């Protein structure tokens, strides 16, 4: 087990395309860090550079106190789980898991002990004699994890390991991965484009975009205190609503956010100091769908009523998503399923402005 440090790492491909633009990241021993971001953001490239499968154009990668820039993958003492499993199709499950140990000339009884132990943890003991072809997607993924576990490496690397599984199995395997990490406690770097996977698995989430790190933090941090519009929009499902707005003077000497000619909402007093400096500037109001819900007569401080025309209603059982358009911008509210909502009607809603975010329109920085 080890610490991993990525320092000013750059990856530039032929033709000058920069996939990773000088990122810095420190991962502590035993930590589970998830790199998340849209396709092409550089997360997989970063993972592959840590693995040694991609050369580094600039910067340094440290594993367990050593610079490993020029160390081949086999000498980095890492294990990797690939998106499409990368199991050797001609080998049995046992041989797949034992391959790395055989190459490292472990004694036979030690190999058997380790494979049996990993198979027990992953509940694949009955599959040890089968070939990968005879396994389901979930079982193959377990074998791929088993291959990583038996090596007892310093670092586990996961490259979108659940992307090829169906939705139900993905949830199940997510729990398995978390359970395995709780058992073996190996430092883990996990790449995904699925923000729910990132939030549920990670000790810390690293949000990447266009080859740079947008924000690093605990899942709660990212959800409640995003620092950029990109992070605010990427984390959370359904995504945060964004409405162009302007900060202006409100009633009783307070501040208000003017969204349209007919929609102006008061800024809670606690935030007035923070937002005062942006009076008159072009801003973007961000509010999550869960902070826009059915109207309650008995309000709380910071809650305000808004009436919006319903566009689409999506009942989901435990909640209902109601979609609106405000001056051309889509807005989603998460309401109680018992609430009446019909397309075309004006629906009264409560906006919890204690949870609002205000961003600069030009830089996207949350203020």
């Amino acid at each position, binding site marked *: 087990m080890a610490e991993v440090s990525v320092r000013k790492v750059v990856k530039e491909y032929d033709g000058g395309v920069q996939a990773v633009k000088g990122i810095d990241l420190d991962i502590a021993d035993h930590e589970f860090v998830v790199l998340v971001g849209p396709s092409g953001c550089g997360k997989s490239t970063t993972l592959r550079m840590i693995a040694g*499968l991609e050369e580094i154009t600039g910067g340094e990668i440290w594993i367990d106190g050593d610079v490993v820039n020029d160390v081949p993958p*086999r000498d980095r003492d890492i294990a990797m789980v690939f998106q499409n499993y*990368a199991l050797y199709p001609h080998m049995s499950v046992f041989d797949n898991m034992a*391959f790395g140990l055989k*190459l490292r000339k472990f004694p036979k009884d030690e190999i058997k002990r380790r494979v049996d132990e990993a198979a027990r943890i992953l509940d694949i003991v009955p599959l040890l004699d089968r070939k990968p072809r005879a396994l389901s997607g979930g079982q193959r993924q377990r074998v791929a994890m088993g291959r990583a576990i038996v090596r007892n490496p310093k670092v586990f690397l996961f490259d979108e390991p659940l992307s090829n599984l169906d939705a139900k199995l993905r949830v199940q395997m997510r729990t398995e991965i978390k359970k395995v990490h709780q058992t073996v406690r190996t430092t883990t770097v996990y790449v995904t484009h699925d923000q729910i996977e990132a939030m549920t698995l990670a000790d810390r989430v690293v949000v990447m975009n266009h080859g740079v790190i947008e924000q690093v933090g605990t899942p709660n941090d990212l959800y409640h205190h995003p620092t950029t519009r990109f992070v605010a929009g990427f984390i959370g499902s359904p995504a945060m609503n964004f409405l162009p707005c302007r900060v202006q003077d409100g009633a009783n000497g307070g501040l208000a956010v003017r969204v349209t000619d007919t929609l102006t909402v008061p800024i809670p007093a606690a935030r007035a100091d923070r937002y005062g400096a942006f009076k008159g500037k072009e801003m973007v109001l961000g509010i999550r769908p869960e902070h826009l819900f059915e109207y309650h007569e008995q309000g709380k401080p910071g809650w305000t009523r808004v009436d919006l025309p319903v566009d689409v209603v999506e009942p989901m059982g435990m909640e209902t998503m109601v979609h609106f358009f405000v001056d051309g911008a889509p807005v989603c509210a998460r309401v109680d399923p018992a609430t009446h909502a019909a397309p075309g009607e004006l629906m009264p809603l409560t906006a919890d402005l204690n949870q609002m975010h205000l961003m600069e329109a030009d830089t996207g920085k949350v203020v």
Partner: protein
Amino acid sequence: MADGTSIPIGVMAPGRSAARRGSMRRFAQRRSTVGFLLCLPLILLIAGFVIYPAFYAIYLSMLNKKMTTFVGLSNFTFLLKRHTFQLVIFQSCLFAITSVILKALIGFILAHLMHNIPGKTQRIWRGLLLVPWVIPLAMSTLTWWWMFDPSYSAFNWILNQFGIASVPWLGVGWIARFCTITVNVWFGTPFFMIMYLAALKSVPEQLYEAAAIDGAGALQKLFFVTLPMMRNIIAITVLFSLIVTFADFDIVRILTSGGPQDMTHVFATYAFQVGIQSGDIPLGASVSLFMFPILAFAAFFVLRGVTQRTKEIAT
């Protein structure tokens, strides 16, 4: 009957006839029937050009020289007792097995080298290395024959430049055998190269990456990933090449005509000599049929192995 539903005896009921027409139509429209009908021209061609000549050759091999009497397997027993034919068996096996091993080995090395050359350059090299395979064999063998000429050949000229005496390339038994094998290897290697290159490209890159992380070096990747993943292609190419090389005619016929002292004869050239040039068609047919059971047996096991492995590793 007055209601018009009576059916005269011996006449099929209109309903039954319609049902029969319907079932005929269904039969004609069935996918398997349509498939069979579409394949029928090819089946007839194969029957006419492969199956009939094969059975006719078997029939011929069991006749006497005048083709008047059925002699059973005596042509085969007669051949086995002849020293020349024993030489032919030895030379055919030596020629085919050595050539195939060399072609497979060189083809594998070339495919690997090619695989590691970047895109555009690879296409150029691939095209150049395929040239021996696309030139008509008779023509290229004639060129080799000139190069092996004892008095004016390029090879001997080079040797002479280094002060080495001329070599009678096609005049001495073992050297002539070496020459026929060399030309066959030169001609057949591109086929192996292109097949292996295709196989190499089909091995998923992630298997190599997984092996690299598991601790495999270049040789271990070759033995534990590349070769197992290419086993089917290797088996099929070797089998195919073995069959074609055992049946080779052009190279030996043009370079040595089987000489010196029948030391380079292979089944095809010997069959031609015995059957056509010496006018003993039944004996020639026996020679040409000699390897058939062995190759058929080998083909059966190789293809069975291929099918098994395909089932095992298909994802």
